[in-house]
């Protein structure tokens, strides 16, 4: 049974169940000439039966989707001769991937016949297991349908049951946010712990030498690679600093202009333009940084006799700053506009000019909110990936010179993981250690920033 035939049978079964349940309830009601009828409207009885069918089918379908790869891999590995696995050299999982990737309709000449044979076998068990699973699920669905139709009686309050189920479904959907957070934390912690079995925690956090590539060289013990993350952290901070150096003045002055000076018509033109800057995908900024800004800076700085790395921190950081501008400007704009009008009035009534009012009254009053915005922007900057991957360097240099090339946490995560399928080396696991550092750093910044902004809002609400 293919997926689509399964799908249509289920849809048919669902509609039939609903129709039958509603009809049964209608019939029960029409038999009553006097006295109380069913406690809920007939359509609820149909809906209840339908709901339970869908829930049970979906549940088993999800279970199947997630367990199928494990089951099939297990069967497949039993079928592959041990000799081939030994001969192959890599892990059995990599061999399984090769078998699965073999396209049996268009076999590449020279493929190992055992692999072809297993690919055909895999194809067979793939289809067979699907058919078996779908049949079982259909059977379960049918049972549930019959059961819930049988339940229709005068004692059964269908509307309450339907609503309770629905609300529970809604709650389930809401908890996905929690599940995702837990998933993130657990997966990061789990892999990071494996990393720290190989590399000392303090060596990672406070080491000055980062050269993970040596760790996977053949014949070398994994922990021989250097995993001191200080140069990476310093690189991240340097680029973030450059970004803030660009974004804070431009963003803040834009916000002041929009909030205090611009006429409504000017405001409604320029605010969306700033928002466009926020909507440009980061990969586009990365392209811009690498193709346009990098070479431009190289020529420009070269005119003055300085040298600058082609993947300099200033190019990546500067473009990241452009990306952050709308972030700072729109948050600061909100914050500035939240400063109560009567403070402005008070200042103007004293004969203060607009700029004096902004500098001496509004900005000090809005400072906590602006600080919050800046913290959020910093958290955004250190988590930003594509710009730095495309425009910053890979080598971990410990430097404060923005004209040199530095690397960042996100760049390292990408370089360590892209293209690498092996999951046991310190090199790949290091990415998770960096990941968890990044996660907690941004989480901390966000929580602090949101606290500050919230306090600020409460003050003036």
């Amino acid at each position: 049974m293919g997926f689509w035939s399964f799908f249509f049978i289920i849809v048919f079964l669902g509609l039939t169940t609903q129709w039958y349940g509603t009809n049964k309830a209608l019939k029960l009601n029409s038999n009553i000439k006097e006295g109380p009828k069913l406690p809920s409207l007939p359509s609820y009885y149909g809906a209840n039966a339908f709901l339970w069918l869908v829930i049970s089918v979906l549940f088993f379908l999800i279970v199947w989707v997630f367990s199928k790869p494990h089951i099939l891999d297990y069967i497949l590995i039993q079928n592959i001769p041990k000799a081939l696995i030994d001969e192959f050299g890599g892990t059995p999982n990599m061999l399984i991937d090769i078998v699965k990737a073999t396209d049996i309709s268009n076999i590449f000449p020279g493929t190992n016949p055992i692999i072809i044979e297993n690919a055909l076998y895999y194809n067979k068990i793939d289809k067979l297991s699907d058919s078996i699973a779908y049949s079982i699920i259909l059977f379960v669905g049918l049972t549930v349908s019959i059961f819930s139709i049988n339940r229709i009686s005068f004692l059964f309050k269908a509307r309450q049951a339907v609503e309770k189920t629905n609300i529970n479904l809604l709650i389930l959907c809401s908890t996905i946010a929690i599940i995702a957070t837990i998933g993130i934390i657990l997966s990061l912690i789990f892999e990071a712990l494996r990393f720290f079995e190989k590399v000392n925690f303090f060596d990672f956090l406070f080491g000055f030498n980062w050269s993970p590539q040596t760790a996977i060289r053949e014949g070398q013990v994994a922990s021989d690679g250097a995993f001191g993350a200080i140069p990476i952290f310093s690189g991240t901070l340097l680029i973030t600093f450059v970004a803030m150096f660009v974004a804070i003045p431009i963003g803040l002055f834009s916000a002041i202009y929009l909030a205090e000076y611009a006429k409504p018509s000017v405001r409604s033109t320029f605010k969306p333009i700033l928002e466009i800057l926020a909507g440009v995908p980061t990969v586009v900024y990365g392209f811009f940084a690498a193709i346009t800004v990098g070479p431009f800076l190289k020529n420009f700085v070269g005119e003055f006799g300085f040298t600058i790395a082609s993947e300099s921190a200033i190019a990546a950081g500067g473009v990241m700053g452009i990306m952050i501008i709308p972030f700072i400007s729109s948050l600061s704009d909100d914050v500035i506009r939240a400063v109560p009008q009567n403070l402005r009035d008070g200042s103007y009534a004293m004969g203060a000019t607009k700029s004096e009012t902004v500098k001496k009254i509004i900005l000090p009053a809005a400072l906590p909110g602006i600080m919050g915005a800046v913290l959020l922007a910093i958290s955004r900057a250190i988590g930003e990936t594509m710009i730095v991957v495309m425009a910053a360097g890979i080598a971990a240099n410990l430097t404060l010179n923005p004209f040199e090339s530095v690397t960042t946490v996100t760049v390292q995560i990408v370089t360590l993981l892209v293209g690498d399928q092996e999951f046991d080396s310190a090199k790949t696991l290091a990415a998770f250690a960096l990941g968890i550092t990044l996660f907690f750093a941004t989480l901390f910044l966000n929580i602090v920033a949101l606290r500050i902004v919230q306090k600020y809002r409460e003050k003036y609400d």
Partner: protein
Amino acid sequence: MTNNLDRVELSLVGRKRSERLFKFYGFLGILIAFLFLITILYSVISQGQKAFFTTFIKVNIFFDSEIIDPQNQRNDEDIRYANFNKIITESLKKKFPENLNKNDSKELSSFISNSEADYLSEFVVKNKDYIGKYKNMWLLASSNIDVIVKNPEMEDLDEEDRLISDKQLGWLNQIRLNKELKKELNKNFFTKADSTEPEQAGIWGSLVGSFLTLLITLILSFPVAVAAGVFLEELAPKNKFTEFLEVNINNLAAVPSIIFGLLGLAIFLNIMHLPRSAPIVGGMVLALMTLPTIIIATRSSLKSVPPSIREAAIGLGATRFQSVVDHVLPLAIPGIMTGTIIGMSRALGESAPLLMIGMVAFIVDVPTTFLDSSTALPVQIYLWKSTAARGFVELTAAGVIVLLVFLILMNGLAVFIRQKFEKKW
């Protein structure tokens, strides 16, 4: 008293100046941001538009029967295996009467894209009459020639910095003089997937990949997010649990996107054994990222529905749940749609998490199912940017243009829905 006013008046000159300066700084801030936007767009469009067209060279092809079908059997299989590269090279040579040595003919043959041999062989299989005859054909130029044609300023570079030799440049100019050069719409770009040769690479494969990925994202995130939004805004009791939920959702919205990629790698790939590089995994990861956006949009558009609607429904004896589903939710749909489209457009531009789950491979086939290996639009841009060959620069920029066009369309749709359907209470 007047003494005081005189002092104020005296101070005014300097104060007025600093007022003007401050206002100017503010305007400068806006202006700089605006100029950045223009610069980015200009740098992308000026380079990218070049990739929409590609160079063709007119060659009088001699379908030499000695090469194609020496046995004169007109067998399809044999024709396919014939050396059409040689046919192209020999035909090119005829353009230049001077004696060419072996190295020269190699340089000459690199004028034409290596895909054209296949094209000619298919052509001959279908039109066997041409064997032994001449035909004027426009053949796709190789990327290096294409780049020089599109960027004439490169001709002035030194030979080693240029992509082609002095000799090749001479030939090129001769071809140009003979008007045997033309630019035409780059069909490969719009219909093919990736390739090692810039002139044969296209955006279509990654576009389909992005589409499949976003479809999964939409299917997974939309119902879940709307359900969560409805629960939190309308039905949830105020307690520790819902508070915790809200904190979680807000934090999830601020988690760096690459972390979601790590989650996908560790859980979807390593624990669940889902296929690498597949749109289904990319879609799942992006769904988690998009979730908070749609939840927040759902909540704010539910919030904007006035309480009188709920009260009216409840007053008629509806349960809370009924009042929400039957009356409040329908009114909130335009806002939810707008938020969803914006969330989707963000997911379309997102690439970092996709790098983590392997959607960053060199893939020459257009994906057809959710389980096929594929890339996504922004990832393709990243891949091309990381490729050394010069011809990919324009291709990268063209990819950016395509991405931006889609984003503009999606955001335009969102604005349209907002203005057309969203009610102001």
